[in-house]
C-alpha cells in the first residue's frame, strides 16, 4: 500500500485511513464527514489528493495525440488554461475522466484518477507509439497534490504567494512559489467551491513545510483536513461524475451528460463515430440526478431504480446531502424517465422508497 507524503500528518490528525486506489488515504478525521463538508462550504478545507496521476505529454505531436485520445477540443487551450475532458475507447466507452493542462507550446499535463493510473498510462502509451514526435512521462509518484477548497481558500493562499490568485479564472492556472516551493496553482477542484489545486514536487520535508504553512495561514478561518468521505458528499451535491461509479468503460459521454465537453466538430477521435451516432439518435438511457422523497432511505451505489414495478436502472452514486438534508443520488434511467419531475422509486430492504428526478447540480 502506497503512502502519500502527508501520511504521518493524517495519522497524527486522527484520520481513519482506508485503502483507496492503491494508497492508504484518509476517509475522515475525528470531526466527521458532515462537519468536514460544512467546513469546505463555509470556510476552507485541505484535501490530500496525491493519489491522482500526472502524465507529462510533450513534443510536436502532443496536441495531435491528446486530440485523438480525448473528447474535448484541446486545440482551444492556451498556456495557463486547463480543461475537463474524458479519454474514450473506440466503443465510445469512457477510459477515464481527466484534466488536460496546457503548460506551454507542445507541453501538456494530463491529470487522471488515482485508481486508473496504470490503465490510463498503458492506453496513452499505446496510442503515443503511433506518433513520431511525442513523449509521455508518468510523473504520478513525484507530484504531491493538495486541494485547498472553500470560500476562504483564496484569502488563505494569497498570504503565501506573489501570484495574484483572485485574477486566476476557473480552469486556469499559474506557476508560482508558495512557502518557497515552486508549484502549479490551479483554479480547479471537485467541490463546487472556489479553490485551488497545488501541484508540486519534493521530499516529505518539502511537502510538510508547504502544508504547515497553509494551515498556519488558514488558522484564522478554521482550516481543517478533509477526507474522501466529504469529498464524495461535496462532489455529489454538485452532480460531478465519479469514475468507476457514474462513468465507466461501459458508459458513453452523451448518456453520462457530458455532451458539454464532447466536441464532435473538432474532428475524429477515439469513439467519435459511435458517440456521433448516439447523439444523432438520442441516447437510450441518461444519467440523472434524483432526490429522495422519503427521509428513511439514503440511496447507495448499486440499489435498483424501479418504475411502475419494473427495474429500470441502478443507482451509480448516492449519499445524504448535508446541504439539502435529504438523500440524493445519480443513476441511469431510460430516456423517457429522465425528465425532471419524473417520480421513480429506489429499492432497498425489501421495499421501495419514492424519489424524484431533478436537474443537477442539486444545489
Amino acid at each position, binding site marked *: 500500500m502506497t503512502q502519500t507524503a502527508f501520511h504521518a500528518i493524517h495519522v497524527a490528525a486522527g484520520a481513519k485511513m482506508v485503502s483507496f486506489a492503491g494508497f492508504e488515504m484518509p476517509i*475522515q478525521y475525528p470531526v*466527521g464527514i*458532515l462537519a468536514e463538508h460544512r467546513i469546505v462550504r463555509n470556510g476552507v478545507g485541505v484535501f490530500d489528493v496525491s493519489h491522482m496521476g500526472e502524465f507529462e505529454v510533450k513534443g510536436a505531436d502532443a496536441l495531435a495525440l491528446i486530440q485523438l485520445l480525448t473528447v474535448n477540443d484541446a486545440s482551444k487551450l492556451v498556456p495557463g488554461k486547463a480543461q475537463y475532458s474524458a479519454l474514450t475507447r473506440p466503443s465510445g466507452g469512457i477510459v477515464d475522466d481527466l484534466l488536460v493542462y496546457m503548460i506551454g507550446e507542445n507541453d501538456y499535463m494530463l491529470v487522471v484518477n488515482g485508481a486508473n493510473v496504470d490503465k490510463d498510462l498503458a492506453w496513452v502509451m499505446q496510442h503515443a507509439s503511433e506518433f513520431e514526435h511525442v513523449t509521455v512521462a508518468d510523473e504520478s509518484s513525484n507530484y504531491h497534490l493538495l486541494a485547498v477548497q472553500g470560500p476562504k481558500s483564496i484569502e488563505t493562499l494569497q498570504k503565501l504567494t506573489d501570484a495574484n490568485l483572485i485574477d486566476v479564472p476557473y480552469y486556469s492556472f499559474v506557476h508560482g512559489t508558495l512557502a518557497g516551493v515552486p508549484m502549479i496553482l490551479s483554479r480547479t477542484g471537485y467541490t463546487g467551491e472556489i479553490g485551488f489545486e497545488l501541484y508540486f514536487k519534493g521530499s516529505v520535508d518539502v511537502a510538510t513545510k508547504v502544508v504547515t504553512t497553509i494551515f498556519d495561514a488558514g488558522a484564522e478561518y478554521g482550516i481543517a483536513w478533509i477526507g474522501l468521505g466529504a469529498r464524495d*458528499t461535496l462532489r455529489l451535491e454538485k452532480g460531478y461524475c465519479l469514475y468507476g461509479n457514474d462513468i465507466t468503460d461501459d458508459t458513453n459521454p452523451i448518456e453520462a451528460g457530458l455532451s458539454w465537453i464532447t466536441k464532435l466538430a473538432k474532428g475524429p477521435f477515439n469513439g467519435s463515430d459511435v458517440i456521433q451516432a448516439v447523439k444523432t439518435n438520442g441516447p437510450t438511457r441518461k444519467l440523472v440526478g434524483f432526490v429522495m422523497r422519503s*427521509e*428513511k432511505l*439514503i440511496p*447507495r451505489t448499486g440499489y435498483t431504480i424501479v418504475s411502475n414495478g419494473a427495474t429500470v436502472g441502478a443507482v451509480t452514486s448516492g449519499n*445524504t446531502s448535508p446541504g439539502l438534508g435529504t438523500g440524493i443520488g445519480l443513476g441511469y434511467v431510460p430516456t423517457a424517465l429522465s425528465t425532471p419531475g419524473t417520480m421513480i422509486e429506489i429499492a*432497498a430492504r425489501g421495499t421501495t422508497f419514492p424519489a424524484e428526478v431533478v436537474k443537477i447540480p442539486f444545489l
Partner: protein
Amino acid sequence: MNLPADLKYTSDHEWIRVDGDVGTIGVTDHAQGELGDVVYVDIPDAGAAVGKGDTFGSIEAVKTVADLYAPVSGQLIEVNEVNAAPDSVNKDPYGNGWLVKMKLSDLSELNALMDVDAYKALIGA
C-alpha cells in the same frame, strides 16, 4: 471507548439494558464510531413481535447503512424519537441515543449475550 459495565452486548455491536422484563436497546460506542455520522434510524414496525436475530430496522450513516438485529426475542414497545437529533446516537449512544424498548419474551436468552469483558475482547478494546 465508553463501554458501561452494567449492559449486555451482542456481536452485532448492540447493547441491551434490562429493567424487569423490558430491555432498552442501542448501538455501542464502537459501532457509532465505525458508522460515523448517523443521519436516520428507520424502525418501521413499532409494536412488532421479533425473534432473536431478526432484523427490526436500519441505521443510515453518511458512509454506510447497517441493519439492526434483535438481541433477544420480544415485542417492540417504544421507538425513540431519535430522528429529531440523529447525532445523539453518535454523541450519547447509551443515553439519549437509545433506539428501541422491547418487552422480553424469554429472559433466559440474555444469558447468551456478552458481558462487557467479552465484548471488549471481541473488539480488541
